[in-house]
């Protein structure tokens, strides 16, 4: 690291000297009290530009005249941002995603020069929503947060929806905001409009923790604390403000010796209460038809193994809400159970569990028609870390659950003790019962798989291409690769999870969290980035409406050479919305044929292949004939295997 030089100036001293020097060079004043009409044309122009000045006569003169004998220059060898980076580096960030912003310019510079642009490496994003959603997708593959940087005002405003998605999905995102807290340091209307009294306020309802430190020492402690909080289940985004002056002002050698990078002491995930776990084990072992419902149950590969172990131990079927890769999709216990016949339902990290166990008529929002889907007397058990953090304003907590046992704890951390408790209770007689149950479920799983294949065959040769055909063609081309699907499956009628053989934790990461559209493309790029170092083939089935929020993330993928196959599910509409509007039209007994208005993305059709090309990405399409799809995917995947992103535009059925 460079050492401090004598003669370095801090910013306040420099500005004072610079102002005096500039005044001497400018000559006659042009300013308040001097009518614009009475000034020379050049001065009028200078006055008009005063808000966001172009190079004025003073600057022009300074840069073209012989140098003064001695001019104070403002240099800093040890900006506070270097120390901030030391702290951030200690947390092990691989990447820092950002759309550049002046309030964190010093930290930006420290990353690329002082830090050598390694760990973290800067990712150039064209929108803060892309930064946050990339971090969201990255964390679900890598199991740890990515850092993002944004202006405390306009940048955070851009990022806010993606932060809400991550919060609702209980995913850690580490957000560093730039802000100039002290008004006396702000130089222009730009810095005033980009400054905020309480930077994190606008996202406090959907972040787990935040702080705005006013000293480097406090920054260090809060930065480490923020990481610890973000990565302790229930995980979530955190915000730490890097004050602009703290970033930019020098730190003397003496002060620096007093600073300290705190050690990160990770908190172990909270496991469920032992007595409650023992009770649950008794109920599960005694149950005739237990059902395990999985949501965000498997945080890690170990979680997936534990779920398989529990299900196989009890020969209990698993109903997967497809919010993480919880269970192998071809396992005979996957999807072969039923809420209607279950006498015990065990929900593991399931958001809005009430909605799983009840049926509502979507149209009747007033005086809801509600019907329980479970049989009378069925015991409902929840193990969830969601009970450990709940906020008031944003209602992602869902409807109140009338559970028989509700354990506040991380499901994955609780599973080992639950498995052991069950093992202790299983008698040879119960084991025989379980085996018989398992045999029945295996047969049921075979029937379901066969029905899925029969269903997939309908409309096989249709154009627009069915989502089943698209999924089957895609599977054919990736099945022998080490693949990872990083998009949701809900918009494709779940065909990937119905047809593909998912076995590994990284092969599926769930969806948005809060259904805030615009998540898909950037989250896929972030997830693909995490997969890159493992050599995995990353696949994204990309909805058209979603891509149009911030398509510039395609450029980020190209720029950073992130291999990713994006297959457009191009149904040329905000399809969910037009179904809702069709509902309303039918309900009002009016013209349902008009509901494309405001919902269709046609006239003109968007050419996504050309869009991708504009960002420098290899692309094929639009593909309308299903027989063209396989060869197009093959061409694209060859590009991805060479380490580049590629896009195939498929004109597809609505769902």
């Amino acid at each position, binding site marked *: 690291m460079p050492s401090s030089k004598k003669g370095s100036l801090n910013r306040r001293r420099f500005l004072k000297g610079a102002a005096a020097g500039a005044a001497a060079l400018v000559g006659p004043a042009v300013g308040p009290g001097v009518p614009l009409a009475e000034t020379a044309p050049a001065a009028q122009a200078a006055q008009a530009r005063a808000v966001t000045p172009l190079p004025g006569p003073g600057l022009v003169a300074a840069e073209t005249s012989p140098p003064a004998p001695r001019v104070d220059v403002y240099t800093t060898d040890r900006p506070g941002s270097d120390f901030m980076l030391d702290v951030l580096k200690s947390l092990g960030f691989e990447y820092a995603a950002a759309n550049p912003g002046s309030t964190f310019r010093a930290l930006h510079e420290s990353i690329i020069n002082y830090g050598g642009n390694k760990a973290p490496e800067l990712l150039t994003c064209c929108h803060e929503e892309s930064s946050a959603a990339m971090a969201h997708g990255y964390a679900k593959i890598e199991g740890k947060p990515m850092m993002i940087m944004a202006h405390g005002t306009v940048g955070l405003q851009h990022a806010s*929806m993606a932060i809400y998605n991550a919060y609702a999905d209980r995913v850690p995102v580490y957000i560093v905001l730039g802000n100039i807290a002290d008004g006396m340091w702000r130089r222009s209307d730009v810095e005033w409009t980009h400054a905020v009294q309480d930077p994190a306020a606008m996202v406090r309802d959907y972040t787990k923790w935040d702080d705005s430190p006013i000293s480097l020492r406090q920054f260090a402690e809060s930065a480490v604390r923020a990481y610890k909080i973000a990565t302790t289940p229930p995980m979530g985004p955190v915000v730490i403000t890097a004050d602009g002056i703290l970033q930019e002002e020098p730190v003397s050698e003496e002060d620096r010796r007093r600073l300290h990078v705190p050690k990160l002491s990770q908190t172990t995930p909270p496991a469920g209460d032992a007595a409650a776990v023992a009770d649950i084990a008794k109920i599960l072992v005694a149950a005739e038809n237990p059902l395990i419902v999985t949501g965000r149950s498997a945080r890690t590969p170990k979680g997936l193994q534990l779920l398989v172990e529990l299900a196989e131990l009890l020969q209990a079927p698993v*109903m997967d*809400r497809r919010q993480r890769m919880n269970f192998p999709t071809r396992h005979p216990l996957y*999807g072969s159970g039923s*809420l209607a016949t279950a006498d015990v339902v065990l929900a593991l990290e399931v958001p*809005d569990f009430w*909605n*799983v166990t009840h049926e*509502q*008529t*979507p*149209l009747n929002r007033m005086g809801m028609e509600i019907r329980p*889907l479970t049989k009378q007397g069925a015991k409902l058990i929840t193990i969830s870390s969601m009970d450990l953090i709940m906020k008031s304003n944003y209602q992602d907590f869902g409807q109140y659950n009338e559970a028989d046992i509700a354990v506040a704890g991380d499901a994955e951390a609780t599973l080992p003790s639950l498995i052991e408790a069950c093992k202790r209770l299983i008698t040879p007689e119960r084991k025989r019962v379980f085996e018989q149950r398992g045999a029945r479920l295996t047969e049921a799983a075979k029937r379901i*798989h*066969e029905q899925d*294949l*029969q*269903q*997939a*065959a*309908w*409309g*096989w040769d*249709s154009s*627009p291409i*069915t*989502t089943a055909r698209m999924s*089957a*063609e895609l*599977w*054919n081309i990736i099945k022998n690769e080490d693949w990872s699907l990083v998009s949701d499956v*809900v*918009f494709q*009628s*779940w065909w990937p999870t119905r*047809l593909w053989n998912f076995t590994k934790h990284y092969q599926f990461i769930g969806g948005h969290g*809060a*259904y*805030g*559209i*615009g998540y898909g493309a950037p989250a896929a790029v972030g997830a693909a980035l995490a997969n890159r170092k493992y050599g995995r083939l990353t696949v994204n089935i990309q909805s058209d409406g979603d891509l149009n929020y911030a398509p510039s993330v395609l450029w980020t993928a190209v720029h950073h050479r992130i291999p990713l196959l994006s297959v457009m599910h191009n149904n040329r509409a*905000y*399809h*969910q919305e*037009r*179904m809702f509007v*069709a*509902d309303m039209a*039918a*309900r009002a*007994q*009016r*013209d*349902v*044929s008009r*509901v*494309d208005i405001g919902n269709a993305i046609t006239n003109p059709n968007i050419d996504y292949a050309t869009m991708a090309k504009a960002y420098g990405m290899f692309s094929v399409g639009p593909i309308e004939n299903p027989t063209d799809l396989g060869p197009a995917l093959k061409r694209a995947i060859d590009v991805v295997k060479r380490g580049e992103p590629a896009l195939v535009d498929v004109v597809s*059925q*609505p*769902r």
Partner: protein
Amino acid sequence: MKKLFYAMVIVAGLPVWGFGQVGQVGQVGQVSGNAEEGKRLFMKNNCYYCHGTSGQGGRDGARIAQTALNLQGLTRYVRQPAGGMPAFTEKILSDRELTDIYAYLKSLPAAKAPKDIPLLNEIR
């Protein structure tokens, strides 16, 4: 920024719209509608939103190509659906138009068996 509330219609992996959620009513009768006109009406009235342009079905609606319902059963379901599908009254679709749509659905080709589609056969 738009927030969507898909969860309202996503119920545990089960289709919530669909003609197919009612049981078969009687036998398939004589089809007297105009299939070509039925196709036009099927598309115009956006039946394909949930059931697909080939009536293949999907997340939001059952497969209705080659429907096993008879015309009476189909009409009854469209007028008084039991699932998540909205009721289409005669103000929206007349009985005559439903007859044409029915003819279109019956005219759609049946699916091949999965064993006869190589990509699906490999998944079996």
